[in-house]
């Protein structure tokens, strides 16, 4: 299967990751190879086979909604590039 420039542009938009032309030239063939590898799954007979979502059976476990100590506001904000008035700061969106 061939991978088109338009498909790449769509993917970049969805993933919010942009490749420079040299990056894309470096990885185009690799990307194609991996897709071809993935395509080999088409040969698997999956008729009536349940998909395996996790190796273990997860169950919902309920507990009381109790207040427990967590991160202090200052600790939670400490790793952000920009903060203001005790909040994370991002460029204006309105």
């Amino acid at each position, binding site marked *: 299967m061939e991978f088109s420039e338009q498909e790449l542009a769509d993917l970049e938009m969805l993933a*919010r990751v942009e490749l420079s032309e040299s990056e894309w030239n470096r990885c185009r063939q690799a990307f194609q190879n991996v897709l071809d590898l*993935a395509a080999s*799954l088409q040969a698997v007979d999956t008729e009536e086979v349940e998909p*395996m979502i996790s190796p273990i059976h997860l169950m919902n476990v309920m507990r009381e909604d109790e207040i427990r100590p967590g991160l202090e506001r200052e600790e939670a904000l400490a790793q952000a590039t920009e903060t203001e008035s005790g909040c*994370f700061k*991002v*460029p204006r969106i309105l």
Partner: protein
Amino acid sequence: MNQSISAAEELAALTAHDASCRLAEGTVSSVQLTQLMLDRIAASQNNAFITVNPKALEEAAAADARRQKGEARGPLDGIPMALKDNISTQGLRTTCASRMLAEFVPPYSATVARRLSEAGCVLLGKLNMDEFAMGSTSENSYFGPVRNPRDPQRIAGGSSGGSAAAVAENLAYFTLGSDTGGSVRQPAAMCGVMGMKPTYGRISRYGVVAFASSLDQIGPITKDAQDCALVLNAIAGKDPYDGSSLMNPLPDYLDALKDGAAGLRIGIPKEYMGEGISEEVRMAVERVAGLLEAQGAIVETCSLPRTEYALSAYYVISSAEACSNLGRYDGVKYGYRTQAYANLAEMIEKTRSEGFGDEVKRRILLGTYTLSAGYFDAYYKRAQQARTLIMEDFRKVFRQYDVLLTPTSPVTAWALGQKHANPLEIYAMDVCTVSVNVAGLPALSLPCGTDSQGLPIGAQFIANTLGEAVLLRAAAAAEKGGKA
């Protein structure tokens, strides 16, 4: 002087359990062991460490003080160790070998880091790896590649290359790595040390940077089976902070070491010994089988016919989960943020494009592709169905066998830079390890000699769900047979 150098070498080369005996006897202190490791780390040229813990000697002094008061906490108290740099350590930078997290200092510690600290271990520092654990060579690191201590021109394996190289070069008495598709076992094999990937859920992943959530598991890298059991005893078990950690009761893993190989039923799946496996690796694995057979194990050939789909299923599932997990890196709450941007969308896109390396971006795009509308059923769902079939194969053979024996890697360590051009060639090297993660099983890589170039070879034992004890039993018996 030569004598003191060799005494230091000998001390550094001890297993963790032997070092523990010396600490208990009082013939050496934790501060001495820690200083020795720090000196060796500073002198090493192999780039195994990204960050050294400035408080290591302080932690060692505290361990010595506890021991003097008769309050030593157990066999690991005072033992210097190190952690892969995707395991969060409060107050100590945790980079994931990525520009994205190059300055990230976690506000809390991973459960495994906390449990080792509570057992008294001294944290030496954080270990180099492939960026976000994506890779099999430890060359995809923002901090430069890890070199193999057995031959510095070669890769250390990956993605936990720093964790394996540090143990092989005696820079730490043991380390932890993480294993999503072989990332503990393969570098352990290539560096000539032992690495275990426990059952999915046996060890808490709270505070470990997520790559592929249905595959990731933490594992110890050690010098022998006894150390592996000691570390497992300290870190395994239910954690209320990790909903995927298992409740099942914990055995004392040290007990498994004494059982010997007599009566052990070992299957060698023929799909793992065929095309693509180097002759020297195959022979080394057969030697391990011979050693165990000589001790009374029953060795037979078996089959896991759906093995051929494991690699494709693995790359589809791991990339899909990675693209979701890595969605959180947007430059807002923590991590790298780009300098110049006009609006929020541009800030996020530039942050991610500049902060992630090539391999990470490639996998994010691949995952985005396989999860997108129109392709989901053809790739992701089909990969999950293949996963069910691979699991069925394993369940079937484990009705007949206690443990499976395979190579860990089809070849020994290759030259740095050699396979850059074609990642698929590198992906293919994971063929012996990925099916274990796909099925969530435990497996262990045992060092089993060297090839004609002197490069280490690893043999892999695979057990059924929660079969860590039988892995240790087989590994301990093989070690004993190898020494006899």
